[in-house]
Each structure stands twice: as C-alpha cells, then as structure tokens.
C-alpha cells in the first residue's frame, strides 16, 4: 500500500460572528488510519471536517497533506473523497453516471471509465443497479453508491460526514462492518465524523472527542474508555457515575462517599483539592446491605436483555447506576425499595478533575 495520506491539522480557529466554532484544533492522521471526530452537535467536529474538505475557510491555522499546505486551496483541488450526510447523489444521473462523474472530471477515457465504474460498483455489490436513478434505491444502497463514487478516483483520504446517521439501527451495524472491511482492503485514510459514541468505539483506530470547539481528548477507543481525561469524556464516551471527592490532607488518599481510597504511588491525580471519583456502571456490584461502605436504596430497575440496570439512591443522596449481568430475568436482582450495598472495584475507579 502507498504510504501517502498523512494529514496534519494545526491550530485551527474559526469564528462565526461572536460564536467560536473552532478553538485551536490540532490532530494528525497517519496513512491508512481510521480517525473519528466525535462530539455532540455544535461541538465543532463537522466544521473541522468541512475545513479539511475546503468548504469552510478557517481564520487561523493550517491543514497539510504529506507536507503540502492545503489551507488556501479550493475544495476541487484537494483530491479528497467525501461521503456526505444524506449522500448528495446527483438526482438527474443514473448510479453509473454518478460514479463516473469524478472520472469524467479527470478526463479519463470512456472505456477506462466504464471498467472502473463497474469495478467500483462491484466492490459495493451494486453492479446490477447501474442504470437506476438514486431515488429508486434504498437508503443503504444510496450510501453504497456514495461510497463507490467517493472512492472510484482513488483519493488519498476519505472524509465521511455522519454517513450512517439516516439509516436504521440494524442497517447501520451492517454498514459499519462494510466500512471497516473497505477501510482495511483499500488502505485509504479515513476521517470520520459522528455523534454516535458506539460507532466511534467500534470502528476507529483513534477517536478525537470534541467539546465546545476543541478536542478534549484524542486516543484509541479503549484508552478513551478506560482512562477518560475529563468528566465530559467519561460521560459522553459510555456512561459513568460521578461522586464528589476531596484529597485527604493527612495521608495519600482520597475521601469520598464510599470511604477512603488509597491512590498509591505513581498514580496521576488531577491537581487541586477537590476532585471527582468516576466509576463505570458495569464495574459496580450489588451486595448485601452493609457489606460495603457504600449503601443505598434501589429506586429504579430496568431489564435490557443481557443486563439489568438498577438505579440506587445512596444515603449520601447520589443516584448511582449499576449494571449487572442478567442471567434469568430479574432473578438475583434486588427488589425496588430494598437497601443494598454497592461494591466498588478499586481498579475501576477513575480520578477526574472536578
């Protein structure tokens, strides 16, 4: 595979009037990497993608590919493939004409065009639909046409803007696999925008989490999940329980509702007196009352097939979500109103800034 497609984005800034859309965005994308920009709506992820594509002019910062500065280049000369939200297929052209369009722009001969269009449609299993119009296809099929069209001219980098958001859940899962296979087979770098944390988690090599116009954390999906740097990441990337805590002045420990936690040596702690103790719901276990330092009353239960969720109001007044494996429906799960203890696995505790 070619070793091109190294994208570097440095110090991007963009304002719309007084609203700051991008505030110092930095990241790089290695050749063949799958990087996801994840964040809630309005967090700057799509603006960043559109800046890379060339449709948003940034106020400051630079975008370069393989060392070549693209910041002032118009979109048509950046040579990226883009898959848009809502697919953006040309409604007056057939599927084949849509896929042939970028080749026609590049002056590819009609014979070569035909064979490359056929190959691209084969790859997405749509060769038999070549003569249909886009509106005669289902959402998933349109999505595949958009992919074929964006890849047929072999761009160095593929930009994807929430490509699966219009599809239903099952189809989305199917296309997630297809996209990953495609990414692996082609070796093209993928820059992917989504607000769906599950999608980001399952598909990406790395994820950059956006909040209020900047990247708050960037890393592999498991490092983001296991070691979130802020409360926002811990909450957005999977569910978390948060407890207020403070640093003990006497010993090397943290005091919180659940007692004292020895943080040992070498553990990196957020600076400051006040901090937050965070634990994922699936790392908590329900035990008999008073068998653990943290106790509370079950206020809600819900069965979700593979797991049962219990909401426990602690004596300190915190609502704690506990996820337990469901083996036989609700059996073995405490009843509503029952007082229970919550066992916290020491390894599962994450210290976060307040």
């Amino acid at each position, binding site marked *: 595979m070619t070793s091109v497609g190294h994208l570097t984005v440095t110090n991007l800034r963009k304002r719309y009037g007084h609203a700051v859309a991008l505030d110092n965005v930095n990241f790089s994308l290695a050749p063949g990497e799958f990087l996801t920009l994840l964040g809630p709506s309005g967090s700057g992820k799509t603006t960043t993608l559109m800046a890379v*594509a060339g449709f948003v002019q940034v106020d400051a910062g630079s975008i370069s590919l393989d060392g070549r500065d693209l910041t002032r280049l118009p*979109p048509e000369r950046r040579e990226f*493939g883009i898959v*848009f939200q809502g697919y953006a297929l*040309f409604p007056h052209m057939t599927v084949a004409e849509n896929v042939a369009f970028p080749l026609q*722009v590049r002056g590819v001969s009609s014979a070569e065009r035909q064979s490359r269009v056929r190959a691209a449609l084969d790859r997405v299993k749509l060769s038999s639909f070549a003569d249909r119009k886009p509106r005669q296809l289902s959402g998933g099929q349109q999505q595949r046409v958009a992919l074929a069209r*964006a890849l047929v*001219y072999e761009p160095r980098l593929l930009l994807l803007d929430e490509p699966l958001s219009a599809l239903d859940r099952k189809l989305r899962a199917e296309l997630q696999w297809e996209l990953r296979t495609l990414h692996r087979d082609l070796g093209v770098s993928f820059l992917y925008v989504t607000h769906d944390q599950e999608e980001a988690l399952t598909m990406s090599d790395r994820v950059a989490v956006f909040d209020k116009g900047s990247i708050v954390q960037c890393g592999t999906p498991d490092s983001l999940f296991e070691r979130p740097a802020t409360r926002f990441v811990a909450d957005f990337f999977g569910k978390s329980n948060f407890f207020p805590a403070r640093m003990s002045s006497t010993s090397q420990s943290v005091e919180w509702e659940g007692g004292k936690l020895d943080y040992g040596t070498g553990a990196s702690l957020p600076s400051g007196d006040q901090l937050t103790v965070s634990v994922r719901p699936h790392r908590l276990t329900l035990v008999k009352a008073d068998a653990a330092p943290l106790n509370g009353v079950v206020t809600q239960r819900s069965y979700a097939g593979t797991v049962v969720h219990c909401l426990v109001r602690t004596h300190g007044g915190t609502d704690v979500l506990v996820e337990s494996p469901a083996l036989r429906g609700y059996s073995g799960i405490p009843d509503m109103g029952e007082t229970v203890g919550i066992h916290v696995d020491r390894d599962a505790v994450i210290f976060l800034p307040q």
Partner: protein
Amino acid sequence: MRARPSGWLLAARIAAFGVLAFLILPAFIVVPVSFTDTDYLSLPQDHLSLSHWQTLFQTPMWRNSLVQSFAVAVASTLLSALFGSLAAVGFMRMKPSMAAKLRLVLLLPLIVPTIVAGLAWYWVYIPLRLLDTYFGVILAHTVAGIPLVFVTASSALAAFDPRLEQAARSMGAGQVRVLRQVILPFAMPGILSGAVFAFIASWDEVVVLLFITSRNVYLLPRAIWDGINDNVDPAVAAAATLMISVTVGILLLQQLLSRRENGKAS
C-alpha cells in the same frame, strides 16, 4: 362509497363550469369565424371555407409576420431562459437579505403595466436608434421574459441541496462544470416551464410592439391589430386561431413534459 353531491355542491359545480366557459369561449369564437364563407367577420353562413386560411399562408404580409413572430419569440425565449436561470443561480448564492431586495428589481417587468413599459421602451429606443429593429423587439421581449424564467427556475432551485454542489466540487469539478452538469440540470424542469411562459408572452405581445415597431418589424399580433383596424378581412380570424393553437399546443407540450418528469419521480 362516494357520497351523492348535495344540491349546493351541484350548483357550485355548474357555476364553476359557467365561469370557465365564460373565460374560454370568447377566445375560441375565432375558430369557426376563420372558416367562414363570407368576406367579412362572421360565423359560416352556407358552408365551411378554407379561403381565409389560404390568404393567411399565401399573402406575403401574413406569412412574413408569422415567420418573424415565431423567430422573435424563439430568440427572446432562449435569451430569457439563459439570463433568467443564471439570475436564479446567482440569487441562490447571494446573502438572503441582499437577495430579497434585488428580487424586487428583477420582478419589476412583471409589475410595471405593459403600456408604461411600451412608453418607456419607446423613449429609450429613440436615442439608441433601436426603434423598429429586431434587436430592439427581442431585447424588450427578453426583459419581459426573464422574470418569468427567474421565478420558475428559483422555485426549482429552492429544493437544491447545497451538498450536491459540495459533492461535485470535492470530486474535482470547477464552478463552470458544477453549473453545467449539476445545478442547471437540477433546475431544468423549472427553466423549461418558465421558458414556455416567456415564449407565450413574446408570441402574443402587442402593446409594446405598437410603440416600438412600424413597417420594418411586422409581427403577427401587430398584423392582426392592423387587420382589425383597417379592414375586416376574416384572415384575421385565421391568424388568431393559429396563435391560439400554437399557445395551447405549447402549454400541452409543457404539461406532457412535466407529467413525464413526475412519472419518473414516483
């Protein structure tokens, strides 16, 4: 099961058809008159005759004005379609506040009374020496046709997803190619129906013609006008019938085209 129409509804239907007949029938009275066997404007007396149609196609005056009229209508329609659709694309790219103000200017030819427009063209054309020239007539008809195309092309483009343009550009297409291969094909149904109206507007326009033409440019509506004023040759009725047929024919063609377009959509 369909409910039986009540008395009121029935009355309303009859009234509606009455109004429709009132609107349409006077225009169509020229059809039988054009086949009259008399030498004056009247309904056929003893039998039908084609002699006035013969006059229409054999007299150089009638034949020339027919050809000229058609040529002028085609030329001004093409120009209206070109400028009207480009204006619509331009407005799509404009800031909405700016577009709202400029739109009014562009629609002015629709709002200004035709007689005032005729007078205005007359005054402007005297110093420009454009009176009684084809260029002058085509220009005046084009200006009147542009807003017609602009309105229909704009409404077609209202449904245009800007991402289509972004997609085309991301694939390497420059502005001109985007316009030619993406935006204009998208707006084409709107442009075509606007062009039909522009054609009809030019084809049967007489008021401005009366101001800006005399001997050199002699179009069909003007020929009919003079024909009525000077003598009562029933060839006028044949010319009028021909005008109506062309207009109705073009409207039917447009209906057919748009039906086919909709058929493809569903």
